[in-house]
């Protein structure tokens, strides 16, 4: 210890002190030390262009990591490649190495780089420009996105060797105007798609179709580019990349980057009310741990799950650490900060000028901020993959690093923190996409027809092209002449199709108390229960009452209020099974997967007093029924099981199980908890038995329920172990739900029923 400052000499020493600190250690549920990993090197490839070799040497690169060399060779062999690499392992060289090499050999060659966000694209261009300048090669790299000034667009279109953009820009600006990009498309050799794991769910399904269109345009200009993808660690990188680009892909995953020793500490805030299962706020605990690290002078990143929490933590920490950092600072980082400010923060982190940063998952993606020493996660980030990504921000090549995961009281967090083996022993989630979702597919078939007439015999997705064409002819957007179908409509289809928003028609919330500013958005399916008239809508802790819901215009007008109640709407959900695609019987338990329609109608709402939860009034909701046609998975218990319980008991048991399942289902899916819905039914229409349904909350489905059908056994086992291991007496928000919801015996009822399900 430094006897002047009281600070530990290094992180190792500090961690030793921490282990002796009772008040912290009693909340540590697990401490795992991951051993350091040696680097595995390979020489620079023999065939590397001399100029390229020199430039790399000037950047201090004398040899490659094994995965970089493997990626280079695979690309030079002509394969499509996906390289899987953890944070900070020199991923960009996996694609820059072969791309620049090819451009030095063949001047006319072009490449297109796709990044999910603009910030990532800009980093990339800066890096490539440095390399190009070192070689004096004349290779021009440009970003082409919404921020590109119109005056330089033409130059980029004609002379950019490497064009760096994002899928949205490709979809709405480049592909529909491909005739302006003749030079690019005629000479395109490589398409680089970084962060492929970010293209999942409905967004990924859209992007897969944009890539189908891109390949179609390349064929028109006689080119056949090679794809080089890079992904964070996920369970199915090859399968995912293959579905995304529609080609066979070679997997490169022999990571050769070194890694210092890594401490992973799971931290559960102490219980403050045992009966209700309430724990101390994870924000306060996160703040405590981060402050300890920062006071030690350890460069630390804190991840929080929402923008509001970022701001909250930042304010606390800045207050707490003031005067203790020798003039160095703690900053926030999230979407919504201006690009210039973000660049400044990134640079500050690299140089060490900034000692701490509180961020949303915006810093999870591959933005270059150097390597920090410590990471504190406020709440489980939602997926194993994200957790490793975020944790990877701490960890220098030669030094130790530490990550704290501070659990919230959310059931998923509680499960992860109490089952460290699940987290450390499980591969990260699978990235799922469903490019043939009919709605998505038809949208992109329209865009593709706009770009180039379809010819009989072409293929686009798994649907029959003739059927789709005939449908669009009847819709009066295509015209058939000979064996071709031509776009014959006045509109520009790409403008009406957004790659990012799941349900395209969100409701906007307008705050009448503050100059009609837009407060936020609510998706169509949640609108009837959240923003019906008289509902109390809570935004950043402030109460608003919905005064008017303009249903056709999709706008809710709210006014700020101060009341002592919240509202809770009843949603009558009717679920119809249209078609069973798969089924399996295990013991008495029948599970099925197929197409379903969900009809939801909000009926009444209750006003419930804050804290005491007493019902102080109610009112009707007059809104039309919402219908959703999607994919679902469900399982039903035997009639004997049903007979052993009263209807009421069964109700509580099913509700309890559903509450647990909806929280742990995301363990198997890379999705937002709201993307999948659960409905328990005591006597389902389809099965006539007690049944629990899951469905994808997007028309046509995105593959989530199908995956759950496959991992059913594990899912049930986890649900059971989660309920048994929960420390509450008879149900709490971290397992089956609060007793107000599932009754005094809810926990027991749920367990009994799961026993029936044959869970081990």
């Amino acid at each position, binding site marked *: 210890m430094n006897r002047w400052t009281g600070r530990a000499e290094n992180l190792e020493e500090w961690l030793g002190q921490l282990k002796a600190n009772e008040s912290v250690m009693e909340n540590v549920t697990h401490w795992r030390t991951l051993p350091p990993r040696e680097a595995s090197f390979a020489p620079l490839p023999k065939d590397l262009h001399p100029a390229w070799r020199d430039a790399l040497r000037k950047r201090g690169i004398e040899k490659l990591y094994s995965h970089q060399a493997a990626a280079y060779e695979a690309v030079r062999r002509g394969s499509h490649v996906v390289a899987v690499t953890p944070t900070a392992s020199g991923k960009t060289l996996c694609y820059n190495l072969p791309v620049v090499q090819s451009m030095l050999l063949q001047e006319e060659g072009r490449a297109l780089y796709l990044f999910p966000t603009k910030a990532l694209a800009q980093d990339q261009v800066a890096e490539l420009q440095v390399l190009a300048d070192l070689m004096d090669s004349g290779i021009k790299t440009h970003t082409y996105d919404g921020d590109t000034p119109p005056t330089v667009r033409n130059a980029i279109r004609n002379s950019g060797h490497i064009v760096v953009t994002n899928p949205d820009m490709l979809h709405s600006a480049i592909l*529909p*105007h*491909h*005739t302006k990009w*003749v030079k690019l498309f005629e000479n395109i050799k490589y398409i680089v798609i970084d962060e492929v794991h970010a293209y999942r769910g409905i967004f990924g399904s859209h992007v897969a179709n944009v890539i189908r269109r891109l390949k179609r345009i390349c064929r028109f200009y006689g080119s056949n580019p090679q794809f080089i993808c890079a992904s964070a660690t996920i369970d199915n990188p090859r399968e995912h990349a293959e579905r995304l680009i529609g080609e066979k892909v070679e997997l490169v995953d022999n990571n050769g980057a070194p890694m210092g020793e890594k401490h992973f500490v799971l931290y559960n805030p102490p219980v403050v009310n045992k009966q209700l299962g309430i724990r101390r706020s994870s924000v306060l605990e996160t703040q405590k741990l981060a402050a300890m690290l920062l006071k030690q002078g350890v460069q630390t990143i804190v991840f929080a799950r929402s923008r509001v929490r970022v701001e909250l933590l930042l304010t606390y920490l800045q207050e707490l650490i003031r005067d203790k950092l020798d003039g160095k600072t703690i900053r926030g980082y999230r979407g919504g900060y201006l690009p210039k400010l973000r660049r400044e923060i990134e640079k500050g982190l690299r140089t060490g000028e900034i000692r701490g940063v509180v961020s949303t998952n915006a810093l999870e993606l591959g933005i270059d901020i150097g390597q920090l020493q410590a990471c504190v996660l406020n709440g489980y980030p939602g997926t194993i993959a994200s957790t490793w990504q975020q944790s990877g921000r701490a960890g220098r090549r030669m030094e130790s690093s530490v990550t704290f995961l501070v659990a919230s009281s959310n059931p998923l967090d509680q499960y992860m923190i109490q089952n460290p083996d699940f987290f450390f022993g499980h591969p990260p989630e699978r990235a799922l996409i469903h490019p043939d979702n*009919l*709605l998505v597919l*038809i949208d992109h078939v329209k865009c593709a*027809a*706009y*770009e*180039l*007439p379809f010819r009989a015999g072409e293929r686009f997705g798994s*649907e029959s092209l*003739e*059927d*789709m064409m*005939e*449908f669009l002819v*009847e819709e*009066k957007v295509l*015209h*058939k*002449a*000979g064996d*071709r179908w*031509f*776009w*014959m*409509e*006045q*509109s*520009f*289809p790409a403008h009406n199709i957004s790659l990012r928003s799941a349900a395209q028609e969100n409701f906007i919330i307008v705050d009448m108390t503050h100059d009609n500013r837009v407060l936020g958005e609510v998706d169509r399916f949640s609108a009837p229960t959240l923003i019906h008239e008289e509902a109390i809508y809570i935004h950043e802790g402030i109460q608003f009452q919905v005064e008017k819901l303009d249903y056709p215009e999709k706008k809710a007008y709210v006014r700020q209020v101060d009341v002592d109640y919240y509202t809770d709407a009843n949603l009558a959900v009717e679920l119809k099974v*249209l078609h069973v695609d798969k089924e399996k019987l295990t013991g008495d338990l029948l599970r099925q997967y197929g197409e379903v*329609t969900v009809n939801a109608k909000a009926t009444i709402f209750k006003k419930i007093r804050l804290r005491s939860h007493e019902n102080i009034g109610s009112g009707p909701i007059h809104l039309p029924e*919402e*219908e*959703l*046609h999607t994919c679902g998975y469900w399982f039903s218990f035997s009639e004997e099981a049903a007979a052993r319980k009263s209807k009421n008991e069964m109700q509580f048991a099913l509700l309890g199980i559903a509450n647990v399942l909806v929280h742990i289902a995301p363990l198997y899916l890379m999705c937002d908890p709201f993307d999948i819905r659960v409905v328990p039914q005591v006597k389902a229409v389809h099965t006539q038995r007690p049944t629990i349904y899951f469905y994808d909350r997007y*028309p*046509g489905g995105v593959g989530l329920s199908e995956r759950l059908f496959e991992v059913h056994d594990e899912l049930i086992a986890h649900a059971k172990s989660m309920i048994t291991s929960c420390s509450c007496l008879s149900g709490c928000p971290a397992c089956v739900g609060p007793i107000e919801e599932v009754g005094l015996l809810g926990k027991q009822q749920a367990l009994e029923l799961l026993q029936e399900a044959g869970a081990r």
Partner: protein
Amino acid sequence: MSGLRDRMNRLRATTGEVHPPDPDKEKEGRQAVHPVTMEDSDGDESLHPGWSTFGVELRRNESGSYLVRRSVYPLDHRHGTHAVGELIGASSGLSAFHPEAGEPTPESILYLDLETTGLGVGTGNVPFMIGIGYMSGNSFVVEQTLIRHPAEEFAMLYDLQKKLRNYTYLATYNGKTFDWPLVQNRMIMNALRLAEWTPLHLDFLHPSRSVWRNTLTSCKLSHIEEERLGITRLDDVPGSLAPQLYFQYLAEGDPAPLEGVFRHNESDLLSLACLSIRFGWLLQEQIFERIPYPEEAEELVRTGLWLNRMGGSVLPEVLFNRAMNNNHAASSSLLKLAASDKKAGNWERAVLLWQKAIVQAGERSHKDKLEACIELAMYHEHRTKQVESALAFALQAMACIEQLNLYGGRDHKHRAEQDSIRNRVSRLRRKLDRRGMVR
């Protein structure tokens, strides 16, 4: 197939069933419903008799067939104020657009106007009608081509591509950003390359805007021709309806709805020719010998300034003097001319204009008055060194900005201006004081 439609309807959760039009029912209502298909382009005998009623004929080449309508006008044909034959005299004036290329002959100019299926220059916007106009011997020819379905496009473009090479200039209205890029698109889409031919653009949208931006409510060709070229169209089909009429033709096979589109496009081409004549005469500085001078100072000033930019000599001064002597001249027009004089170092008239602008602005425009006062204050401070006069105008400017304050307008720019006037006033006062001490 109906399976796919049912699935789409379910996914979209449409409650009201949407059925495709039932062909049997449709037939009851109308007689000649016959959607256009490929077969229509095979052989003359299938050419719908309706086409000949407005002069449309079939044209074939080695790449297929398409339709064409050709109208020939004698040189003395009047379209509004001008006769098409005036182009022979006026065309040399257009050399100001591309001085390096010499004088355009009337035969070197191709007029182009497209009718398209949509907006913008995306790859899915198809020009179903291409209208061209050109001088040929003793007549002005309008040639309009139409594709009966998109598969005929190649044959139409194939002929157009060959024809383009006979011309040097491409005369359009907004053709630089719309018509020409669209033609280029279509050539690429049909694997026809235009590499060796690039037109010299005569796009009259930009000069029209320069001249008429503030005097006409719109700079659409149809508005300009009415206000300035003496053209009135009867029963014109608005251009915005053209796509729908074409889709109607595609669906029903009856040419009748397209007659209006042909006539509209033909009028556009004739108006375009007349507009080029007008600008040609104007650039030769002969225009107002033929027609009266504009009434408004704004148009006089704008025309003069545009002519100056295009290299004019005598006429601009004539126009400016008319504007100066116009008792109704708007202060903004006077300021515009003053700014140009200041730049050219023509101080004498600039000062007159600023003074007149103050009078004309009166209580109507404090903003213009402010600008004129500041200009005069600067002029007297730096050029004539009459500090007293400078101070008088600066104080007047100060009064103006205070008036403006009453109406809000407290943005950043406004505050900066206010500060700079304050600084000027105090600087001028210091200068005066110092002089007083010397005396």
